[in-house]
């Protein structure tokens, strides 16, 4: 059984290595970010499989921390410049769809 978990973990490692091709080729920075997301999900799965293969239950906690940190990478990517939107953003050419300002948390 532990051999099966090991083989599955190695297979997932292979998919990560293939995903690195996307990091190299890009072309956009969003594509490179995708690979980081792939590492997050697949890394969690590999850790879970390894925790059974090596009978090391602490690796499940490592996977939990990975899961918690996965979203931080994406937030860091999205907020990396902190620049306002460029004025030629496609949606800005459309007419505004609702009159008056919408408050983001108005749910009354």
């Amino acid at each position, binding site marked *: 059984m532990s051999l099966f978990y090991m083989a599955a973990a190695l297979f997932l490692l292979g998919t990560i290595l293939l995903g690195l091709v996307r990091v190299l080729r890009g072309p956009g920075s969003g594509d490179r970010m995708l690979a980081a997301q792939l590492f997050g999900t697949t890394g969690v799965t590999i850790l879970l499989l390894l925790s059974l293969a090596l009978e090391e239950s602490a690796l499940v906690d490592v996977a*939990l921390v990975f899961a918690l940190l996965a979203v931080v990478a994406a937030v860091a990517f999205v907020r990396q410049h902190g620049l306002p939107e460029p004025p030629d953003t496609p949606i800005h050419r459309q007419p505004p*769809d609702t009159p008056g300002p919408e408050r983001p948390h108005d749910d009354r």
Partner: protein
Amino acid sequence: MARASVPSNAGRRFAGRGRSRARRALATAAAATLLWWILAGSAALLEPLALLAIVLAAVASLLLPAGRPLPLRPVALPGLLGFFLRSSFLGGLDVARRALDPHLPIRPDFLTYRTELAHGPPLTLFMAVVSLLPGTLSVRLEGRLLTLHVLDRDADTRAALIALEQRIRKAFHDPRDRQASDDGAAP
């Protein structure tokens, strides 16, 4: 939007808040206990550190300013959960089939969808679940106009979105429903 201009109403609301505050402290303690049990196991629950953490969590929920209550309707939650599990599995199946097909059968496009959900938790949940439905990805929200990316422009995406919106609508108490029950019917 409750201001001091309606004193009786505000007073009643304040008393209700005091009761719900104690209930929230209890709920926080229960959640902290559950989380500690999940993370550290049942043997660790009797350690002094665990008890300290649980008590501190309850006290913190008493001291910190109250957040907005989550207007959940528990009866509708199993239905929403089942719908979510089924459609997110179908979403994975759909995209896996397209990715492994040698002909790569995708016709990507953008579309816009106007949702009637209230801002806050319902709309956030809607945006998150849309990205897991078959063939849809939420790109941008402006007011209530949602821009989506779809993998197959010929698929009946709009019907799936309307179904999801109705499910989420049922799972939350919508304050607008009480005011205009005949006006708020989904299109």
